[in-house]
């Protein structure tokens, strides 16, 4: 019952969809940010143009770097694609077939992060070291907070399988329970931190005092940089999809059939449209935090997640 070979075409389509959705979503966020800051925005497909330009360009290897430097972009990229197999996107039909649960998902993100940080330290430049260190600093608080959010959703659904959780939560009441509200808030903060968005990191700057993600990628160029950036955009969309399937699962289909799939896809497109605009709005009105304040921000996420499961224990059982 478990081997997912019978669903290989479906899985393949899902991965392709995610690979395409990642840069597209990033493009949409940038469009809204452009409009909000009174600029003439680039097109929605600008990230694709950037990726293809990078892929065609010659790659430069910093002298003194090892094979890890060349391997890491592939590891990061393929880890993200494997992670996309563990998250329900359009339907929860394959919920029981996923080859890992949400904790495995957290582990996969950690794997990608470790490889990214190691690759950053490989060239032996101070900026890379700094970026790697800061990335791990954000990660060490975001990871346990994510696990705690998963605990909260487990309390409601008795499953850590992402598909099953969203199936259960979808059938539940549409009225939010306190634990889910806390969980969703914590999750939003984690999403910002893990993906290097404002107020943790500014994807648009190269300022040494503030940058995290960009500092790690400083020595990358050409195809390696393209794979890293592509992987990061996929990571953002995966975090968003996971959040949607936990906290806004309504509209997702649970039965096989193209009609349900179509409706669900439309719902998903709507949710991504709105959440992209929301993310852009949030990023426009927020200021970047000082790097020393970042742990406090992530601690807030951790505490909110703790409040989530405690409120379930105290109020809801």
């Amino acid at each position, binding site marked *: 019952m*478990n*081997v997912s070979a019978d669903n290989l075409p479906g899985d393949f389509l899902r991965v392709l969809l995610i690979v395409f959705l990642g840069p597209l979503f990033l493009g949409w966020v940038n469009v809204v940010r452009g409009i909000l800051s009174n600029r003439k925005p680039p097109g929605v497909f600008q990230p694709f143009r950037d990726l293809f330009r990078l*892929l*065609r360009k010659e*790659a*430069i*290897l*910093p002298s*003194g770097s*090892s094979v890890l430097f*060349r391997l890491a972009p*592939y*590891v990061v990229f*393929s*880890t993200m694609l*494997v992670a996309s197999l563990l998250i329900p996107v359009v339907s929860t039909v394959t919920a029981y077939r*996923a*080859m*890992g*649960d949400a904790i*495995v998902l957290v*582990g*996969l993100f*950690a*794997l990608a992060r*470790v490889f990214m940080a*190691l690759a950053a*330290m*490989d060239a*032996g*430049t*101070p900026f890379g*070291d700094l970026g*790697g*260190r*800061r990335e*791990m*600093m954000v*990660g060490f*608080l975001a*990871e*346990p907070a994510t*696990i*705690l959010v998963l*605990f909260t959703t487990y309390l409601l659904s*008795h*499953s*850590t*399988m992402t598909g*099953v959780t969203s199936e259960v939560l979808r059938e539940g009441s549409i009225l939010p329970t306190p634990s889910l509200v806390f969980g969703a808030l914590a999750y939003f903060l984690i999403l910002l931190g893990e993906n290097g968005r404002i107020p943790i990191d500014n994807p648009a700057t*190269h300022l*040494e005092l503030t940058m995290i993600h960009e500092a790690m990628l*400083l020595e990358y160029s050409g*195809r*390696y940089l393209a*794979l890293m950036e592509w992987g990061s955009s996929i990571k953002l969309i995966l975090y968003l999809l996971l959040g949607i399937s936990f906290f806004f699962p309504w509209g997702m289909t649970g039965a096989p059939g193209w009609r349900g799939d179509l409706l669900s896809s439309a719902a998903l497109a709507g949710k991504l449209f709105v959440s992209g605009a929301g993310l852009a709005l949030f990023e426009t009105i927020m200021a970047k935090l000082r790097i*020393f304040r970042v*742990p406090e921000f992530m601690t807030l996420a951790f505490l909110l997640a703790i409040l989530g*499961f405690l409120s379930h224990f*105290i109020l809801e059982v």
Partner: protein
Amino acid sequence: MGAKRRFLWPPQKNDMTELLKNGASPLVFSLISMLLWTVWGFLGYGLSRLFSRPFPVVFFLSAMTGVLLAVSGVWGIVTGTTGSVLLPWGLPGLPFHLRQDLLSSYFLVLLGTIAAAVSVYSTGFFRRETHERFAWISLWIPVFLAAMAGVLISDDAFVFLLFWEGMALASFFLVMTDFDREWVREAGFLYLLMAHLGTSLILVSFVLLSLGSPVSGPGAFAFDMLRQGSVSRGMLFAIFFLSLAGFGAKAGVLPLHGWLPEAHPAAPAPVSAFMSGVMLKIAIYGLMRMDFGLLGMKNLVPGMGATILALGAFSALFGVLHALMQHEPKRLLAYHSIENIGIILIGFGLSILFFATRHPIPATMALSASLFHTLNHALFKSLLFLGAGSVIARTGSHDINRLGGLVRRMPYTALFFLIGALSISGLPPFNGFVSEWLTFQSALWATDLGETMFRSLVVLAAALLALASALTAMCFVKVVGISFLGNPRSSGAENARETGVSERIGMGVLATACIGAGLFPVPILKGIDRVIRSMVGEGLPLPSLSHQWLWLVPVSSGQAQYSPVLLAVSLGVILVLAGVLVRIFLNRPPRPSLPWNCGYPVRTPRMQDSADAFGQPIRRFFAPFFLIDRHLPDPSDPAPEYRLRIEDPHWEFLYRPVTRFVLFLSGLAELLRNRRISVYLVYSFVTLFLLLILLR
């Protein structure tokens, strides 16, 4: 169940022949391994003394013996054999009780495997020692191994403590290998002190336990009698806490962990690998034997589980935080041992908590997580210690701040160390992840616990586990990034050469085992399931293990499942696919050039991160966990000095006050001493007088 052979006291003439005649059984194999190890020890010592040169081949013989012991353990688990034997030595009325049940077999597998791999490594590692040093090491390592095997198969308190002390002393002698250095002597003394403190606590707990034994006399100390005994409730708690402290001191549980970060750097790398990889696990074995075997399941209460759980969670967090502050690789790994023992105890505590509240499913899951992590930690920690040993031997530096760029000079060591680092960081698809995943899965059952306090405790402990595991990843990014990547920070690192072939084989075996246990956890868990069934009569629920070898499903696939093989295969397929696509469409080789470095032209190796800088965010954020002595120079200071010392607060607030108190007491006792003979005669008289009054 296998045949039980009983030998009578007084010894019969044909006991030993009958033991051998009755055919091979796992226990006989284990006894032979112990005997062989002892022989190899004396052989190695004698040969290298006699011919004044090292004989590394004895380590190869040790390795083969380790394989034999592992086979014996696997055999015991697969056939479910429990063998026992009485040997005609020991106290009158208490012959040596030896017994190998499934729990012993499991730990024997662990011991044998690590012994084999580390001994192979040792054949190369100790090749260039002077013959005196070699004789010393090659005597004590096999004796140490034999004593550890002895602890695992003892079946009465006397022989248990005998082997336990043998293990402590052999490892003490190994820690003291470089006894001409003062810090090594201090570390050795501290270790001996802690070891004996632990032993005495265990001894007291055995004595208390024997009070409830159905027979009197020395025979009461047989484990069988202790099992049947019944003690009062207050006594039960006393025994529990005494044994927890005693075994905890050996395992490095907070707050009795002080010896670990001192003793591990002092010992040669293979010895540290044995101590951290195996000896700490023997203490865990003792704890499990005591709580599940001797105290008995029926006597466990939830509070005991909660105590162990809280201790484990704190040890885990504390260990990793201090590991992040270290720049001496073996000291850093020692703090990680404290962390991992904490993780093992989290699983163990959860299982007691769930058993005591009658939830067998999560209880067995937690116990299997704990046992699995015991094995995993043995594998990757030995691997990491060996890797660190090679690096130290080849660069001559005990400070990772003086390393860098070793991945190009020691590629194999770097690869194996990276595998160990990914495993200990709990990343899929390596082995550390599986046991942590199982621990999380069992902690999720907290909802079934009645009391909100226990529920919150379990979830908080799981949160601390997640925190510790993320911090471990950070710490190993630091170690790997600073010592293996980047540019060399010293000439030692610049001129390092790859480690020898046998070292590579030893590490390669352990690295392969880490990957294997990560990809195929189900066969191992099936073995663990047998062990648990034999211990507590309950096993993992049926659906979980009837699945294919591919899927790890603790309860039901709707709740949680994990397939490491599929995960690794899809990861590999996508990776290769991406690589091939890039190769086909963009076949333009990358061009090497200077790093861009934001355009800064000057770049020296000293501009790279140091270990202390890497831990700086942690130092700021978790400041209450450290005692920080930091001195920043004044701008006008002509001879500026920067100083940063981070100390374990236990020294300041626990160990030193206790030491002062003991010294104060001994000072008082000193008042009695150094008198004239007449005063001593008065002492004797008063003592006699008191005895006569009191005992009549």
